[in-house]
Structures are given as structure tokens and as C-alpha cells.
């Protein structure tokens, strides 16, 4: 009797679980379905250069992915984003370590980085065009300068926010610098580093388009400029979607890393 009841429980729980998953998927997908429906409806009443059919946009997306010359533009943009972020991250970590170790360095660099934060991305584009000849150095410079302050301040805050009692505990075992870095510093600041990457990834994907729009002869930003010149809205949307898809994939990868790296956290923390 009891066993029979126990066996029934999972069976009765399964539909509840699948209903919950279904509801969650629906909640996530529904806004996009509504937006797509509105767009598609608008495409019936407006000319294609204003609201192209989503079928056209989808076809253009496939064309981009299937044509190497166009796909290479997408990959070039992705490469520029990743290179810029990696450069800014490495420099940002070095600056943050220097700032946390020396009050003088902190007091010297903080106002400069704050100043950099106030400079618009477009200004960095203009500076880069004046200062650099090559396209890639220009874009790399722009990407680094626009994301460096955020990376530096985020890593600095993470280092400064490390729990003092845990540091004392680890220090009581008298670790080498490398051991301290491995067992305490990296795991302690990893959540903030991943957050910094997530935030800067979005910023970088916006900035790279501006940089390519003005200072490049290839990439998603350059292609967007071409679409604008021929009033090709379907093309503009298709190229924009390439970047959006990349950002979504990259955010997904970061979320996956988070779920693996932070599996030690209590469930209630993750649901906050």
C-alpha cells in the first residue's frame, strides 16, 4: 500500500514539473512572439525599407551564415570584441592589483580612470582615427579604452571586498604568493570577474559597432553602414541579429561557467 503510494508520487509529480518548465519557457518566449507578430503585421502595411517581412530577415541571416565573405565579417567583429575585452581585462587586473597594493597608485589612477569613463565612445573613435593608422590597432584601442575603467574598478572592488577573516585564516597557514592567489584570491573574486565580463560584453558589442561604423572596412558595423546607404532594413536587422546572437551565446557560456564554478552556493543564494 505504502509502496504503491510511493511509486505514484513521481508519476503525479512529473506533469507538475513539465508544466512548470512549460510555463517558464512560455514566459520567456511570449514577449518575443508578441514582438515578432507586431513586426510581421506592420510589414503587411508598410514598405519593406521600413518594416521588412521577418521571412526576408531570416533569409538574410541564413545568407550571412552560409557565405564565407559575410560570415568572416561577423567573425572579425567577434574577434575584435573578445580581443578588446581580453586586453582590457588583463590591463584592468594589473592596474587593480597595483591600486589595491598601493594607496598612492590608487589615488593617482582613480581620477584618471573616472575621467576615461566620462569620455564618450565616439570620442575614442575620433582619437583612435587620428592616432593610429591600422584598422585593427584603432579598434583594439577603442575597445580597451572604453571597457578598461569598468574592468579595473570592478576587479578593484572585488579585491578590496575580500573577506578579511578568510584572508587571515589562509595567511595563518603561511602560503606562498602563488598559493594565496590560487586558494583564496581567484575563487573569492571570480563571481565579480564573471559579472564584470557579462556587463562589459554588452558594452563592448555596442562600442565595436560604432568603431567599425566609422573606422573599419569590414565587420558588422561596416556592413550596417552599407545597409543604411541602400536603405536595406532587412539587411540591417540581419547583421544586427548576428551580433545579438553572439552576445546571447557568450552570455550563455558565462552563465554555464557560473553554474559550474558556483555550485557550492546554497540554492537560496542562486534564486535571489
Amino acid at each position: 500500500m505504502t509502496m504503491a503510494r510511493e511509486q505514484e508520487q513521481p508519476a503525479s509529480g512529473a506533469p507538475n514539473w513539465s508544466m512548470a518548465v512549460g510555463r517558464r519557457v512560455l514566459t520567456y518566449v511570449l514577449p518575443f512572439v508578441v514582438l515578432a507578430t507586431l513586426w510581421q503585421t506592420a510589414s503587411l502595411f508598410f514598405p519593406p525599407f521600413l518594416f521588412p517581412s521577418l521571412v526576408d530577415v531570416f533569409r538574410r541571416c541564413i545568407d550571412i551564415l552560409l557565405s564565407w565573405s559575410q560570415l568572416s565579417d561577423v567573425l572579425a567583429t567577434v574577434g575584435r570584441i573578445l580581443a578588446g575585452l581580453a586586453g582590457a581585462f588583463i590591463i584592468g587586473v594589473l592596474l587593480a592589483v597595483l591600486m589595491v597594493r598601493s594607496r598612492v597608485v590608487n589615488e593617482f589612477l582613480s581620477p584618471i580612470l573616472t575621467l576615461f569613463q566620462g569620455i564618450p565612445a565616439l570620442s575614442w573613435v575620433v582619437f583612435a582615427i587620428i592616432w593610429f593608422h591600422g584598422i585593427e590597432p584603432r579598434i583594439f584601442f577603442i575597445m580597451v579604452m572604453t571597457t578598461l575603467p569598468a574592468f579595473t574598478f570592478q576587479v578593484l572592488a572585488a579585491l578590496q571586498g575580500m573577506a578579511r577573516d578568510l584572508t587571515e585564516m589562509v595567511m595563518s597557514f603561511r602560503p606562498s604568493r602563488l598559493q594565496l592567489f590560487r586558494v583564496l584570491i581567484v575563487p573569492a573574486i571570480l563571481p565579480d570577474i564573471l559579472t564584470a565580463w557579462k556587463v562589459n560584453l554588452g558594452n563592448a558589442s555596442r562600442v565595436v559597432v560604432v568603431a567599425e561604423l566609422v573606422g573599419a572596412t569590414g565587420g558588422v558595423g561596416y556592413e550596417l553602414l552599407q545597409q543604411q546607404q541602400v536603405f536595406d532594413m532587412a539587411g540591417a536587422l540581419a547583421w544586427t541579429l548576428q551580433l545579438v546572437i553572439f552576445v546571447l551565446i557568450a552570455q550563455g557560456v558565462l552563465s554555464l561557467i557560473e553554474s559550474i564554478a558556483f555550485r557550492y552556493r546554497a540554492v537560496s543564494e542562486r534564486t535571489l
Partner: protein
Amino acid sequence: MTASAAIISLASVSKSFGKRGAASNFLAVDRLSLDVGQGQMLALLGKTGCGKSTIFNMIAGLTEPTAGAVMVDGCDPFREFDSLRGKIAIVFQNDRLLPWRSALQNVELGLEMLQVAREQRRATALRWLTTLGLRGHEHDYPHALSGGMRQRVSIARAFATDANILLCDEPFSALDEMTGRALRAEFVRLVKENGKTAVFVTHSINEALEIGDRIVVLKRPANIAFDLPLSGATSDTEKETIRGRIQSVLAA
């Protein structure tokens, strides 16, 4: 206590906090001289804020004395920080477990610093977790353990390195009466069985009487108000007399 027998020695040690030369410096420890012999279990007793933890941190090498000399096993624990690797282990007031490490990995921490081979450190950590009644919880993360279990892990972490000197900063004060008492008894047994030297900081007279084979009562700023050896032969009546003396010193 003769200086040659002392494994921990504080000679006229002072510690003040604040900027050097400032008029409003806070004096936490005032010309304290104290020797702790090998195998001794010293209970350092004093009111909250009397400088117990400052003494503790100076012995651990985490704080530098403003004046005087601290020597642990023949080394200056602050200036010769690395020389004492593996010789001192600390049990803190709260467990201070690394949240991203399982119980087993937390116990392995000190052994990692000593670069003990992986298999050996795993076996040692497991043995200590078993000794402290945590077998079956070795892969649990700290958030999944109760306060008492977490403190057991931190005790296992301290014992796992086989350090000769154990420094304990009110390790059972955050636990409930029953858990604290059980863990305290277990701790004393392990210290005695393993022949460790222990400095046990506490503000509880009962705890000091239960644990120490020597009680040092501190007045504020930290200096010795009285220093009393205890033994297994100390009768309950004598302990009551000692309790009364300690209470009068602490009340002063």
C-alpha cells in the same frame, strides 16, 4: 617557566593602534612578558576588549608588536613568517571555512600549503574528519553543515597539519552550551593525546578552568593580573577559590 623550556615567549611586548607618534594611540597590550612551555595548555582569560586577540595575533605572526619581542619556536613569527609554516595552526572564533571548498577540501588546506602529496593529504583530512565525527559529510559544502559541524571541520583543519602549536581564539563561543561543551572536551582530549602546545583565548572562567593546565588572567590594557598553574589534582574546592579570585580580578 625557564626561557629555554618556553616554546612561545613574549618579552616586554606592547602593542598600540593608531598612527605612529599620534597622541591618541590606543594601547592594547602593555609590556607583557609571558612564556609558554612545550606541551602546556594555557588558557588566556580576560574581559572582552582586554587585548587577548591582539596577543593571539602577535603570536600567530599576523600582527607586529609595537615594542618588545615575540618568539615562537625560536623564530620571530612576524618577521620570519614563512619559517613557521606548518608549526602553528589556528582555530578561530568562527569557523572561517572557505565556502567554495567542501569539508574535505577545507581540511586539506593547510596540507596543500605544506605541499603534501594529494593522496596523503586526502587520507589525512579524511582521518581527521572521521575522528571528529564528520564521516559522510566530507563532500558537503560549508553552507550545508550546522554551526557545530563547521567548527569541527575547522578543528580538523588545524589538527591535520600536525602543527606543534595550536592557537585557539574562543573557538566554541559561537556554539550552544551543549555543543560547545562536547566539542571542548573532545578538543582537550585531542590536544593531550597528540602532545600539542595550546594557547586558548577565552573570556569564560568556566572554560578556562575546564581547559587550561595554566590560567593567565589579563587586566586591561593586556598585562598579567595573575598567573596560575592547574593540575588534574586541583580539587573542586580549590577551583571555586580560584574562580572567586579570577572574578574579583576581572571585576576590578
